[in-house]
């Protein structure tokens, strides 16, 4: 700041100003402007990066039904859930079919009805007590484990939670034609 005040006393001081001091002030101004500019760029960058730092395609857990409904489950039961997908400033609501069933240890689990082979909807065939995919014949047990057919893995289980006696499920899509369960959306 002393550089600046030195200069306020008229033309003569400026006339005798050496090139060095003039360029020193210039450097000071350039640094100052750079610093302020960087500071001002912070909100701009945060604004632009918002969708990357926060998942815009968010999926809330959807209610499947009251727990009591599934207490005496003997075979998988199909339920239609509503899922809400948020895409930036808009959302899409769609219906998805899931199966509520029991896993090997007898706990409730929820299976996606999408075949992990090529994505057809797998129906529960009560007469055979198996899930049989109509498209390419993949067969699964009542807990979704793979028995036979072209699929590389069993049916996909979905994350569930219980809230106020309600069974909630988080619907997700998984990569097909793969032996690993990989979330794609």
């Amino acid at each position, binding site marked *: 700041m002393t550089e*600046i005040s030195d*200069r*306020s006393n008229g*033309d003569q001081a*400026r006339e005798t100003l050496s*090139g060095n001091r*003039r*360029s020193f*002030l*210039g450097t000071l*101004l350039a640094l100052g402007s750079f610093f*302020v500019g960087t500071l*001002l760029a912070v*909100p*701009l960058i*945060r*604004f*632009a*990066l*918002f969708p990357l*730092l*926060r998942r815009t395609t968010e999926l809330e857990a959807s209610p499947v039904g009251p727990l009591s409904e599934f207490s005496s489950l003997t075979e998988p039961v*199909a339920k*239609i859930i509503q899922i809400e997908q*948020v*895409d*930036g*400033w*808009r*959302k*899409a*609501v*769609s*219906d*998805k*079919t899931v199966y509520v069933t029991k896993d090997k240890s007898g706990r409730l689990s929820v299976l996606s*009805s*999408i075949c992990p082979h*090529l*994505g*057809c*909807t797998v129906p529960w065939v009560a007469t055979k007590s198996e899930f049989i995919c*109509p*498209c*390419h014949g993949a067969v699964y047990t009542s807990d979704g484990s793979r028995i036979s057919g072209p699929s590389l893995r069993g049916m996909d289980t979905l994350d569930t939670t219980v809230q106020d006696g309600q069974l909630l499920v988080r619907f997700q*899509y998984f990569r097909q034609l793969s032996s690993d369960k990989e979330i794609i959306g």
Partner: protein
Amino acid sequence: MAAADKNRNALPEVPTTGFRGWLNRRMGLDALLSSALDEPIPGGARLAYIFGSGLLFIFLSQIITGVFLALYYVPSADHAHTTVAYITKSVTAGSFLRSLHGYGASAMVVVLLLHLSQTYLYGAYKGRRELLWFSGCVLFAFVLGMAFTGYLLPWDQKAYFATAVGTNAASEVPLVGESLKRMMRGGTDMGTLTISRFYVAHVFLIPACIFALLASHIFLFRKAGAAGPVSENPFTPKQKTEPFYPRQVLMDLSLTALLIIGLGSLCFFVPMSLGPAANPADSQYIPRPEWYYLPIFQWLKYWHGAASVIGVLIIPTVLALAIITIPFLDRGIERRPWKRPVAMGAYAFVLIAVAGLGLQSAYLDKHDPEVAQQLAKQKAEEEEYMRKPFEPELSAASMAAANVALSDPLAAKGKEIFEQRSCNACHGDGGVGTVAAPALIGIGAKLSADQLAHLLKQPNAKMAAGGMPAVDDLPTDDLKALVAYVASLK
């Protein structure tokens, strides 16, 4: 002459070696920089001259914030309000940047009035500066045009109704008024086409005009030279000059710093609010324009019927022409305000009239109990809206799907099957299509129901190759429902 000496003195400073030397030989940057910074100011640097570069700074800030806002904004009556609400309520720093852009517009008008006043009071339009003054006047009009077009874009209640009034005012112009209004609105009523028009004007047309005029304004300024203090001769400056750099630069930068601090804290502590979405059916809403349009708004209230030609067209035209032609009307060499009673009287008159009209409008609103009550209600509704969290808009596909469910029971059943069988896994919800399979929207117009049913049962080679399974296990009724749904997708 002093400036020329200085330039000669500055020459040895130009680097000839290293990277800067190379750049300089290729681009001549240093010569450009020194011609910009060594601009001679007769009588030396003064705080009175800082407003022009202040305007330039705000304009730059408006461009940058505007470009960033366009990352999320969608100019359509369906989405404009949702996207602005998203910016304001959800996006990080969104409220701050939107405020910077909105308050920036007000700051621009304030600094513009200061710049204009300084030029006028200092008689800096004298001495071969007619075109410089003229380009400034047109720039002023364009800045007001930016404010007018930008105000509509959030499409909230106040934006909608203020613009409805603003465009209505245009229809008061005799003969062409109605066409002018329809031209601005893109039809008889305000709607999504109005947003498109205002958006194009706000983002492409007016900015392009401002760029061009700004360049000529600065060029004409450098051509004529700085006018200097009021004691200076406007034609042939005689006073000792001082280069623009460093003292004037520092003074200009101090205004910039003040603007950054002022606007920054305003936007941070009192961010701009957004009202509820425009509801054209609301007959109670009392529109009020932004403060800088209040005087015009109040003025238009006084003119009705046959007399409106005088108030809406003749007086404003005469006033605008008078302002534009000031350098021709006032040819004298005298620049000291106390020796220019007519010029100063006219300035005081216009200033008092404009301020008086604005104050009158505010006073009337405050003292009419009905209006005051309604305005308070509108303010409360706006605050209420701001408190609510952001609500995403239901996508068109979900809405189309929901509509089908309401209208046609067969198609509704088909939609259920479409989702149960995960047709949507590849064809997308509502048949909008995904990377895995094409969209089905509009397929009903190309293929008959029988053709669709046949293709579902026996996909053709291209479909099968894409992974489409045959739907041959559905009962006939279910297949009919599915076909009805697919054919209904629009």
